[in-house]
């Protein structure tokens, strides 16, 4: 059967799907096959990364390769795995059903990896089996007999070392074959469930027009798939099939026999026979290098010390290394703005270009170095295998507040920026765990809050130079507030709103490897590209809207005056709301404008308090004139506006408040609803207000 709307002729580019367990070297193989000819996007409606590349056959003809998310089984447990299942079953209209399937397995771990292969063979598509990591298998003394496996399965089996590029030519030759054989795959479905399989198969074939083999494979899956994950964009089951499935499940529930377990067991039996025939195990393995490293890295004491050291290194790199490119980019943006101002005649259009578009793009691009460094390290940690260990160590701590160990990476990334953090929650299988992580991730102090903290600390402390201990102490306090806040809310949500059983975590710790620099860099570029696309468009849009709101309507005589603008009006409008926490309408304008990105607070404050010649894009911009302006700002009754107490209140407000449109937009995408981003904005900003209120009013009461 060809996918609907796709002519099955020699003229069409054949579509290969690349499937395999996590950590079997699938991405490396995909990169090796397609080089840089890759397109990274999203499956519409779900937040699963879609990677499609082009490889070339031996005759130079293009072959489309889809890199499907790694999975242990077609019985999906997470959105990623559901996409893999649905693409293979032809349930997604946005992706052609693959003509052929490349199954990649870790040769050192053949038996466990063959489980997925066994399910895939059921699909009745031509399959090529790629045995990756043959070098590691040989080193551990295992002998994998490729010929026997090929003979037993009746499909091409290619021995390969994707990291070293070995076996790629043989693989491409196999992929170029016009006539790939179908597998001789046959296994006995336990007799008791055969009638159920037949009935479901008939319903799927009749109702949804599936080919008999695909329908059979899907029927088998439906029976093992207890609470199957449904994802947006996939065709749901029809009512009749659902009804048949439900009635069989009810019947079995009455018999108290675990048919799903029996099905899995019978697959493993078949695999056991296959593996016994094809694999000659080596001498009993002693402690491998990985085991020796793990003895230290997962040690209760040393493990923590190493983790802390690694995290410190990453943080220092993000904040120190990124400074140089960020300054440079800031200078370029400033130069560009000056250039445009010189060339274009003064007027609204020029201001739109410089203060709206260029400022917006500048904000995004300035963040890029930090994001790139962050993604580089995350890629490096994933590539070497350390990331799984970090998640393992953190799991003990995270499970106390009901979070999954896998939430560690998203939360860590959120210190740089919540957007990549939220995008990284996709690996968390449990939807409630994932949602909790998304809800608390923006509480981690992101780097856009830094300029706000720095300005407030400068305004808070009298004297020209802020003593280092004060600066560091206050800064640490803000980071600690956000972090404990995040854990506190996670604990609260897991007990109330997203009540669920304690997290069930099962995670494979892959053997340590030397990192493949090409894979790490490619990963970094792709992720950064996604970030730019996701956050960039929003930030640019918001910057232009904010420019409009701060420019129009103009003041008397057609002069731009923020006081008279929509933003000024909005600032005045929210003043009653923010007065109890010590803010006036001018700070209100700063709050509103910083929805584009929190750091915009600094530049808009400079505008509001009419600081001349202040260039917020220049990282070495002297804060002194701005600080002086803030110090001279007063309430109408003559009281100073920025008292130390107000500065503290404002910092606390920024720790908790959801002051970021891009994050809201990303949460909306990742949760596929407006409900959660709205809830998140309310709870975060509500907490911010309440805490600032308590601090401000208590401070006032104590006479500060």
């Amino acid at each position: 059967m060809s996918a609907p709307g796709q002519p099955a002729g020699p003229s069409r580019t054949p579509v290969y799907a690349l499937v395999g367990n996590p950590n079997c070297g699938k991405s490396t193989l995909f990169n090796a096959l397609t080089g840089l000819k890759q397109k990274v996007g999203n499956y519409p409606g779900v937040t699963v990364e879609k990677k499609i590349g082009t490889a070339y056959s031996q005759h130079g003809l293009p072959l489309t390769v889809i890199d499907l998310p790694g999975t242990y089984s077609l019985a999906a447990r997470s959105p990623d795995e559901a996409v893999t299942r649905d693409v293979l079953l032809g349930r997604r209209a946005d992706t052609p059903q693959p003509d052929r399937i490349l199954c990649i397995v870790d040769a050192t771990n053949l038996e466990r990896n063959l489980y997925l292969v066994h399910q895939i063979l059921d699909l009745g598509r031509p399959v090529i089996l790629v045995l990756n990591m043959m070098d590691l298998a040989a080193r551990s003394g295992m002998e994998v007999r490729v010929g026997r496996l090929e003979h037993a399965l009746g499909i091409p089996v290619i021995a390969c070392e994707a990291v070293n590029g070995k076996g790629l030519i043989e693989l491409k030759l196999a992929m170029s074959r016009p006539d790939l054989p179908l597998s001789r795959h046959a296994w006995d479905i336990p007799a008791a469930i055969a009638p159920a399989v037949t009935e479901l198969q008939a319903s799927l074939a009749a109702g949804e027009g599936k080919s008999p083999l695909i329908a059979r494979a899907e029927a088998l899956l439906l029976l093992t798939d207890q609470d199957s994950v449904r994802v947006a964009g996939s065709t749901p089951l029809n009512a009749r099939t659902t009804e048949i499935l439900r009635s069989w499940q009810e019947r079995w529930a009455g018999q108290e026999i675990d048919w799903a377990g029996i099905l899995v067991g019978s697959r493993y039996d078949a695999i056991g026979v296959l593996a016994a025939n094809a694999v000659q195990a080596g001498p009993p393995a002693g402690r491998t290098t990985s085991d020796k490293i793990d003895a230290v890295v997962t040690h209760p004491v040393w493990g923590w010390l190493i983790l802390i050291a690694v995290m410190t290194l990453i943080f220092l790199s993000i904040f120190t290394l990124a400074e140089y490119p960020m300054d440079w980019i800031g200078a370029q943006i400033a130069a560009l703005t000056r250039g445009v101002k010189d060339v274009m005649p003064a007027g609204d259009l020029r201001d739109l270009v410089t203060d709206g578009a260029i400022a917006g793009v500048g904000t995004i691009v300035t963040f890029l170095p930090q994001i790139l460094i962050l993604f580089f390290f995350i890629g490096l940690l994933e590539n070497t295998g350390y990331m799984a260990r970090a998640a393992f160590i953190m799991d003990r701590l995270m499970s106390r507040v009901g979070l999954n160990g896998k939430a560690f990476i998203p939360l860590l990334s959120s210190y740089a920026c919540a957007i990549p953090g939220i995008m990284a929650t996709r690996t968390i299988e449990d939807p409630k765990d994932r949602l909790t992580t998304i809800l608390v991730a923006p509480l981690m102090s992101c780097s856009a809050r830094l300029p706000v903290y720095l300005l407030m600390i400068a305004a808070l402390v009298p004297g020209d130079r802020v003593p280092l201990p004060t600066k560091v102490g206050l800064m640490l306090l803000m980071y600690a507030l956000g972090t404990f806040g995040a854990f506190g809310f996670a604990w609260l949500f897991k007990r109330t709103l997203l009540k669920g059983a304690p997290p069930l975590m099962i995670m494979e710790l892959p053997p340590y490897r030397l990192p493949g620099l090409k894979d790490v860099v490619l990963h970094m570029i792709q992720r950064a590209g996604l970030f730019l696309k996701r956050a960039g468009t929003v930030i640019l849009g918001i910057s232009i809207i904010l420019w409009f709101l701060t420019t129009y309507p103009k003041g008397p005589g057609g002069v731009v005056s923020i006081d008279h603008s929509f933003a000024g009006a909005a600032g005045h409008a929210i003043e009653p709301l923010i007065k109890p926490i010590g803010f006036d309408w001018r700070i209100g304008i700063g709050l509103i404008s910083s929805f584009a990105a929190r750091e915009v607070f600094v530049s808009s404050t400079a505008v509001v308090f009419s600081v001349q010649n202040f260039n917020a894009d220049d990282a070495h911009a002297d804060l002194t004139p701005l600080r002086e302006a803030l110090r001279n700002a007063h309430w109408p009754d003559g009281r100073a506006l920025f008292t130390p107490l107000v500065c503290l209140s404002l910092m606390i407000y920024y720790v908790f408040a959801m002051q970021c449109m891009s994050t809201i937009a990303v949460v909306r995408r990742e949760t596929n609803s407006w409900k959660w981003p709205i809830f998140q904005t309310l709870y975060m900003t509500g907490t911010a207000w309440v805490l600032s209120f308590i601090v401000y009013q208590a401070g006032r009461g104590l006479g500060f």
Partner: protein
Amino acid sequence: MPTAHLEPFRPQRMTLTELPIGATGRVFALAGETNVCARLRELGFCESAVIEKISGQKTLLCQLCGTRIALSDRTASHIVVELVRGG
């Protein structure tokens, strides 16, 4: 004849969480929530699979078929093992 010889050899059964660190057990059964058991089976925790417990209390680390696997104690409590050696 000592009575001990008359008793058939019965290996000790316990959940994986109770298996002492450093000991090796053979999976005897999976018990508890069906979908958790199905997932464990798919990952290779089948009856008769041999597991070595490496470390951990709340989050366990074990070795299965040459692979390191971390699992939370709630997951591990679904796995009933028979003590093979160690402990």
